């Protein structure tokens, strides 16, 4: 019986597992109780069999006893057979041990029939009869070693294929350019000047350095030259504000600048950029949390009138005043605006965006509190008709109303729609948006990942509406989907669909994936993390990469 079933609440120390189980209300008594109940139910449900076994009574207590007896008798018989097996095994082993010559004895080799002295290391012959002499034994040992080696290398090969799959790379002989770039990145500390290696290669090296976290003050200078027009650095965490300033003094012609993870960037740097980079029309800053709102106002007042793209992420200091400055200065030129994880904006601030009539790309992601139905509907009424891309990831407060009164009536040109993590939408709501939505010509890129309340009807309506145009479809963790949706996807001739993510959608198995790769001709990449029903036996067409399959990495 349970120890704490009694009145006392005194408990000793217990493990995390016990604590967890108790929190969930799981205890051994309940489990046993449930088990007994099911046994009883089975007994009452299939009383016929019980009768035949035991010849029966209606009394439930005796019936349960009978079941018990049958169970116990069957288990006893199983035990007996098991024991028999064990006995026979024991006997075989004993026999083998008895017939095997002891070390020191003289025996004849099973293969070459020569006389030899048995040692503890003598190997048995392949067929199990007799022992091998030293020379025959070592010959086999060599073969075994070789076998093991090939086994290991094939395992290694499988692993490296899986690894390159994860990088979404083609598995092929590496290009000489890539080999060189790797070497250059490795010895970057010793490079004095990169020279004229081309923008594309430069960008590649910058990417690798960012990944290795080796973009530092001294390596940064290699990328700066007066004629360069685009610079993208993905990890600036090691760059001091002084060297970030250098960018503007060395590269006055810069048009497009990306600085990610630039935690050390300060007001001074942004002020310097706004006065020195006269050609800049695209700026992406991620993680510049030291830049104050006043600085952003100055920035937009100086350079805002030429900005076409502005993208900001991960800051708390970009507030209503900054956004007002942006709207005031950029209303004529700004076409792409992306604000992600900007926590200082409130929902009434979103209405300011009404005054940006040229916007074609809008991202307001991971700003849970700021995005609500009414504001976004008003916004779409104003700028929806020319919007091509709309990204409102993680806006959990949005409901069907936003879809039906905002997206459906206004977003005729919309091609890319991303609503990941928006769990406020219902199946029927999303269905009603896409059903007979002739106003829109079809989506190219649709992301409904983790919209957990969306189900079959919604996604089937989406497929009906956009089958001819879809290129990328993300249905990660849309749990409620059934295989009917994937059958529809396969049968509706999605001729351009090239990327599909149905990770953690449990209904997808070998059969579904086979049909999909067969019917969707352009399919190149499938992400299938957590789809345990997809096995290595699935026949997947050549040229289609499948990521995250469990059997690939084992």
């Amino acid at each position, binding site marked *: 019986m349970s120890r704490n079933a009694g009145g006392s609440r005194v408990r000793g120390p217990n493990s995390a597992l016990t604590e967890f189980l108790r929190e969930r209300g799981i205890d051994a008594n309940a489990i046993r109780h449930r088990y007994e109940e099911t046994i009883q139910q089975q007994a009452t449900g299939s009383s016929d069999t019980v009768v035949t076994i035991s010849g029966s009574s209606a009394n439930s207590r005796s019936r349960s006893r009978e079941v018990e007896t049958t169970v116990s008798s069957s288990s006893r018989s199983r035990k007996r057979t098991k024991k028999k097996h064990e006995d026979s095994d024991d006997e075989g082993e004993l026999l083998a041990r008895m017939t095997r010559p002891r070390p020191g004895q003289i025996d004849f080799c099973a293969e070459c029939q020569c006389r030899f002295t048995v040692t503890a290391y003598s190997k048995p012959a392949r067929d199990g009869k007799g022992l091998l002499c030293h020379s025959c034994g070592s010959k086999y040992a060599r073969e075994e070693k070789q076998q093991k080696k090939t086994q290991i*290398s094939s395992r290694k090969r499988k692993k490296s294929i899986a690894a390159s799959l994860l990088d979404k790379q083609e598995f092929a*002989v590496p290009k*000489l350019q890539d080999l060189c*770039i790797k070497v250059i990145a490795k010895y970057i500390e010793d490079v004095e000047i990169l020279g*004229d290696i*081309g923008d594309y290669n430069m960008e590649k090296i910058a990417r690798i350095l960012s990944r290795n976290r080796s973009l530092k003050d001294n390596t940064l200078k290699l990328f700066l030259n007066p004629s360069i027009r685009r610079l993208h650095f993905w990890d600036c965490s090691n760059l001091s504000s002084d060297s970030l300033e250098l960018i503007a003094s060395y590269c006055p012609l810069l048009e497009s600048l990306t600085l990610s993870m630039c935690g050390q960037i300060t007001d001074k740097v942004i002020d310097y950029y706004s006065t020195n980079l006269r050609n800049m029309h695209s700026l992406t800053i991620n993680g510049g949390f030291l830049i104050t709102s006043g600085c952003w106002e100055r920035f937009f007042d100086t350079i805002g009138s030429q900005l076409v793209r502005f993208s900001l992420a991960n800051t708390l200091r970009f507030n209503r005043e900054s956004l007002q400055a942006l709207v005031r200065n950029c209303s004529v030129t700004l076409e792409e605006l992306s604000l992600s994880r900007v926590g200082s904006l409130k929902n009434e601030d979103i209405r300011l965006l009404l005054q940006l009539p040229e916007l074609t790309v809008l991202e307001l992601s991971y700003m849970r509190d700021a995005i609500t139905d009414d504001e976004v509907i008003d916004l779409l009424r104003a700028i929806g008709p020319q919007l091509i891309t709309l990204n409102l990831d993680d806006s959990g407060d949005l409901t069907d109303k936003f879809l039906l009164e905002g997206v459906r009536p206004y977003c005729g040109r919309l091609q890319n729609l991303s609503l990941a993590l928006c769990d406020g939408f219902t199946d029927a709501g999303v269905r009603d948006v896409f059903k007979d939505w002739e106003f829109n010509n079809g989506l190219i890129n649709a992301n409904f990942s983790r919209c957990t309340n969306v189900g079959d009807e919604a996604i089937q309506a989406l497929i009906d509406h956009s089958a001819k145009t879809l290129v990328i479809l993300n249905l990660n963790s849309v749990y409620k989907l059934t295989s009917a949706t994937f059958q529809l996807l396969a049968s509706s001739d999605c001729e351009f669909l090239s990327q599909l993510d149905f990770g953690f959608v449990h209904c997808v198995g070998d059969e579904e994936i086979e049909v999909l790769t067969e019917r969707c001709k352009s399919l190149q990449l499938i992400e299938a993390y957590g789809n345990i029903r997809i096995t290595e036996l699935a026949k997947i067409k050549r040229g289609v990469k499948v990521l995250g399959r469990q059997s690939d990495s084992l």
Partner: protein
Amino acid sequence: MSGDSSKDSSDKEYVRLVSSDGFEYSILRSAAAVSGTLRGMLSQSSNFVEAKQNRVVLPNISGVLLEKVCEYLYYNLKHQNNPGNIPEFDVPPEMALELLVASDFLDV
């Protein structure tokens, strides 16, 4: 690989690459075809001088670099069909930058 192989029956099978400082390498046509640039220059359907003479002059690549490039062309040719378990191709750090420019030009 290097040097002065005769210009007889092997002419069709082999092509010659000439470096900026006058070194000549004659390599298999199939190896040269690994490089997109060389493939275009040597394609029989084109009317280029290179295709007619089976000889490509590369005035922007030095002899040392071209030797390394040829080594890579054969390395790629050898492992093309079995990219699973291949040895590493060694790029000396001192020539990595120049080699990058050359390989960018040759599209390999």
